[in-house]
């Protein structure tokens, strides 16, 4: 190991130690800090998210997937702009997307997954993080940088299969890890069924993020996961689609999970409330999109590449 690498590693460990200490010192009791200084905490989680991505990079920095050339720069910009535009258009105020039983549809999430898969982890991360930032700015908000980083991690993890020479080998492990996390999420839901779905608003029915979470929203993660497994085996021969879907699913679970879990400290939710109220209603429907829209994009991109010879 060269000197530079060691020094970066030490710096990273020190930063992480400070962060861990900081989290305990700032908020040991998990009180509701809505009107207290949550700004440093938000940025703390931004740093943690970046540190995670950076650690993965350091561990595999010899790999070609990390190279950023002209193409990557342009793809990053396209991905981020598309994600921003789609999440703005589909946020329910401009272009009404139907929702079923508290599952609000957020199809834009397919963009960071697809860009991560097609163009690598760096492009994926930029697409998710910057796209979410600009998307929030378009609606006039920019208050939750930890969600930007969470979205960035979705794209980042979706891009990790490029690190492997043999894409097929990792698939089953990824699927099992996602499955275990899904089961944990659903079990938490069945233990805490009465918690509110904090992401669900319906003005006409008088529901403002305080209605108990519906069964469909609660098990949407499971539905999504089943769809992912189906897509994985339905497209079993088409390794591209299978890889994109399974890694996208894992990225979604970990990335959204990161953002929801950071809200335990930032907004003072209890761990169960963060998982049932935020993680499940956000990550569940996202998985459904991963299973349906990502294959459409991957297949379309494949035929575009064949046609144009690139």
């Amino acid at each position, binding site marked *: 190991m060269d000197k530079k690498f060691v020094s970066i590693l030490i710096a990273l460990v020190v930063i992480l130690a400070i962060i861990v200490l900081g989290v305990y010192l700032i908020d040991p009791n998990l009180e509701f800090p*809505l009107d207290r200084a949550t*700004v440093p905490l938000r940025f703390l989680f931004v740093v943690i998210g970046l540190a995670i991505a950076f650690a993965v990079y350091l561990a595999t920095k010899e790999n070609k997937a990390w190279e950023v050339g002209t193409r990557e720069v342009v*793809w990053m*910009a396209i991905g981020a*702009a598309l994600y921003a535009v789609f999440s703005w258009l589909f946020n329910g105020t401009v272009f009404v997307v139907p929702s079923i039983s508290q599952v609000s549809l957020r199809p834009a999430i397919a963009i960071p997954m697809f860009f991560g898969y097609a163009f690598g982890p760096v492009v994926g991360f930029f697409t998710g993080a910057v796209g979410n930032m*600009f998307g929030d700015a378009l609606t006039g908000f*920019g208050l939750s940088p930890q969600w930007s980083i969470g979205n960035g991690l979705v794209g980042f993890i979706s891009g990790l299969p490029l690190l492997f020479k043999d894409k097929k080998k990792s698939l089953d492990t990824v699927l099992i890890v996602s499955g275990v996390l899904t089961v944990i999420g659903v079990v938490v839901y069945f233990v805490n069924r009465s918690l509110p779905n904090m992401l669900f608003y319906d003005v006409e029915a*008088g529901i403002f993020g*305080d209605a108990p979470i519906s069964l469909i929203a609660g098990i949407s993660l499971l539905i999504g996961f089943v769809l992912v497994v189906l897509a994985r085996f339905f497209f079993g021969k088409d390794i591209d689609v299978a890889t994109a879907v399974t890694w996208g699913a894992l990225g979604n679970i970990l990335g959204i999970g990161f953002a929801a879990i950071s809200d335990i400290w930032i907004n003072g939710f209890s761990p169960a409330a963060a998982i049932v109220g935020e993680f499940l209603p956000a990550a569940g429907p996202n998985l459904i999109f991963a299973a349906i829209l990502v294959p459409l994009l991957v297949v379309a991109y494949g035929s*575009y590449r064949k046609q144009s010879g690139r």
Partner: protein
Amino acid sequence: MLVAWRYRKRKSFIQSFDPRAWIIFYICYLASTLFFWDARFLLPLMAIAVFVLLTSGVKWHEMRRAFLFIVGFVFFFAFFTFLTGRGGLEVYAQEHLVRRFEAPFSLLGWRPVLNITVERAFFAVSQLMRVFSLAVMTILIPYSLNPAHYGITFRGLGLPDKIAYAMDLTMRFIPTFGRDFQLTRDAQRARGYELEKISGGLIEQVRKLGPLMVPVTIHAISGSEDIIDAMDLRAFGVGPRTWLEQLTYRRRDYILIAAGVLLLVVSLGLSLLGYGTFWVPEVLIRAVGG
């Protein structure tokens, strides 16, 4: 073809500063606003936003659409808070009832009840001020930042060349893709794609979004080849980048940055000392006989 934001050269307060200085000030302002729920502290912050808006020189007809959208959104949000007290409930311990409305009907044994309390109403007002200030400061940026300066601005803020350029391109692509989306939607409608009647089960509904998302995405990727070629021809990323435009800080820019940092430090200090938490005027509570 690229579509641009509605930037024009204007003689205005916001455009008299270096864009880097303005972005730094904006970030400090954003963070400072987040510390407060107290209307007394939010008022000066809102005054800054209103001052910047009024001196921005952006004509009403230029920003009408964006502005109406955001104002609508802000009121919508404050109204939520007002109706439910959600978000506020944790901040105040007791509520003083002004009036209680009960619906004359009940839905499945649940009777809608609306309690108007001083705390809820005032919390909604505070939230309105908070979100309004943030939104105004945010929408003014595309109107006042010269597209030719995007890249050098982000570079000047310390981002690496490539990331700065990617941010530059992102800001340029957003309005273009918005237009592309509308074109695609119209084209699909002309072919009989019924957006208004997206029906069927969950999976079917999701699948029907494909004809909107896939063409826009693939078109964007195929269009990127031109830009990549143009950049490669100019040897992008070979050496350290030089930028066509140069930005220089002048004295007023340093003053603005200092003001922004001061604002942030003062806000942080006040908030650590326990100021700025949600506050309701005593007068209002006494007025309802609390």
